[in-house]
């Protein structure tokens, strides 16, 4: 290789061999992958004999992780691009309700309802992005506003149209069967750990989660827009100077998080069979926590979609794992909060060690 011969030809005291370990540590998702293994080991030790290690237990936490992970992956791209989206939780409630009201109340084919919900999500995402890029206000403020506004509109309109805040009967709507195959089917596996005939259900949302993470990672690492996302998060002025369409990219990223919320809402509505105006509450914070645990820098310009996938896995394992340990699940929030802070400290430490100047 040319690069090797160069190093041979000109030995330089400034050239330091980079160990494969440093290379690994330099990956932003390293902490999250290590953390996921650690969390799994801890629960395997504490709750291994109480069902955590069974296929059913695994399917259980993977389902939780998948729904959060779809959201977290999209949010990770946005956060690498230097912005926040606090409105994704409300967006889950809104799009879920659009699907339910249109299909149940108005008798539309559910596929059309799902499509309308997607258009709505993309439009609101674009509006978030436009407001952020036009006003130059922090996206934290803009999307904090849309967090409340979207939730309010969802509750208000649903009550006006249906007189209730919950809409059921999704399973009787037109086109439900095919839609539920795509968004809410499950792979049934006979659980060998039980003496009785017990099946573990692996929902298709797990597949969506992996697909979304794979596509996001490809975009981020192997496309021009991916490079721009790092650039606009790292230094928007510098990116603009070299011709990166900063505003357009940001708007697209906001549309991406809104679309992820729509996907989660579709999966939820079809698998539960109903929609609730309050669905998705606080999901925006869970998503940010998963992204940050995944190694993405809060200030943008650095991070990973794979990390977000593993961040969501950690949150899912802890949330469901606690149930298996027999500890009151009220304590989950304490773990979540502590984990967030520890993860940021560990990630900062690793990043500093890996990218420190000589």
């Amino acid at each position, binding site marked *: 290789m040319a*690069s090797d011969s160069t190093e041979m030809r000109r030995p*330089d005291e400034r050239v330091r061999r980079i160990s494969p370990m440093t290379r690994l540590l330099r990956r932003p998702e390293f902490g999250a992958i290590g953390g996921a293994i650690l969390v799994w080991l801890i629960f395997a030790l504490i709750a291994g004999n109480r069902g955590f290690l069974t296929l059913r237990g695994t399917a259980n936490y993977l389902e939780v992780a998948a729904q959060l992970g779809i959201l977290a992956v999209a949010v990770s791209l946005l956060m690498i691009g230097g912005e926040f989206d606090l409105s994704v939780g409300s967006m889950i409630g809104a799009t879920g309700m659009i699907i339910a009201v249109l299909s149940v109340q108005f008798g539309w084919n559910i596929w059309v309802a799902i499509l309308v919900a997607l258009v709505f999500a993309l439009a609101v995402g674009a509006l978030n992005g436009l407001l952020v890029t036009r006003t130059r206000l922090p996206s934290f403020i803009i999307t904090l506003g849309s967090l409340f506004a979207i939730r309010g509109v969802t509750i208000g309109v649903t009550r006006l149209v249906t007189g209730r805040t919950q809409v059921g009967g999704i399973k009787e709507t037109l086109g439900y069967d095919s839609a539920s195959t795509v968004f809410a089917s499950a792979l049934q596996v006979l659980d060998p750990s039980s003496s009785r005939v017990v099946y573990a259900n692996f929902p298709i949302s797990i597949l969506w989660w992996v697909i979304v993470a794979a596509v996001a990672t490809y975009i981020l690492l192997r496309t021009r827009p991916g490079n721009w996302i*790092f*650039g606009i998060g*790292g230094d928007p002025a*510098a990116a603009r100077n070299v011709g990166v369409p900063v505003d357009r990219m940001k708007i697209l990223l906001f549309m991406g998080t809104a679309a992820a919320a729509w996907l989660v809402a579709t999966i939820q509505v079809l698998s539960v069979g109903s929609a609730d105006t309050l669905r998705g509450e606080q999901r925006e914070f869970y998503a940010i926590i998963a992204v940050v645990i995944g190694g993405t820098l809060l200030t943008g310009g650095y991070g990973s979609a794979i990390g977000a996938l593993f961040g969501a896995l950690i949150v899912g394992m802890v949330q469901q794992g606690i149930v298996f340990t027999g500890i009151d699940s009220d304590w989950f929030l304490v773990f979540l909060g502590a984990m967030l802070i520890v993860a940021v400290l560990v990630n900062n430490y690793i990043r500093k060690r890996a990218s420190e100047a000589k």
Partner: protein
Amino acid sequence: MDSRPHNPILEVRDISKYFGTVVALNGVSMHVNPAEVMCLLGDNGAGKSTLIKLLAGVHRQDKGEYLVNGKPVHFNSPRDALEHGIATVYQDLAMIPLMSIARNFFLGSEPTTGRGIFRRFDVRAAHRIAREELEKMGIDIRDPEQPVGTLSGGERQSVAIARAVYFGAKVLILDEPTSALGVKQAGTVLRYVAQARARGIAVIFITHNPHHAYSIGDRFTILKRGRTLGTYTKDELSREEMVAMMSGVDELERLEHELREFRDQDAQRLADAIHDEEENYG
């Protein structure tokens, strides 16, 4: 004064720029030829920054002509200037510390491979080209994947220069590239400037350090209070004359005088203080 026959690649004639009531530039003329380093010298407030921003397409002049290859141009944005081959490397670098060298190098102009939806960022080519181009400039990077934040200030400047050269800069405007650097690092950057000149690029080198200017420059244009004091070739101007012209000899002498006075006053105050102490406790 400069009397060589010239076919400048970039030239401004009698250019003026006002900001409200402030006259930032007042009838400034200068030009730069291919394969030449033209140093633009001046103290703070001389109008250097305004002139660079004007050349880079950030500002537009209120009076005067801006010619590229002998033709008048009107730039509306830095992008326009870039398209004419005029690249500016700013002091604050426009490099993103957390991104790798290769990703920084190609930001906004990434090489791609494949077609349609399979069109993707050719990471391998990016690494190879970044390494090769930096090598051509004599910059020895260890690993194109390492974050720019791990490079020293001089190395970062050098990468920024190499990037401008690779993307076809014919005129390279360097805004104080050495001012924040140590002696050794400044030397490194000056060497890359010489490399760029050897490749036929016209360099406008902005500095207020006469020593850096004198070691690399072919010609020197001195700005003071928004006006040109003149353009000189190296043999027309000694280093001392240059320093004197930049700040004004009388000003330097006045400064020295003031400093001496401060020193005398301090000495007097100290003596008084000691005297007081002795009176109180003595």
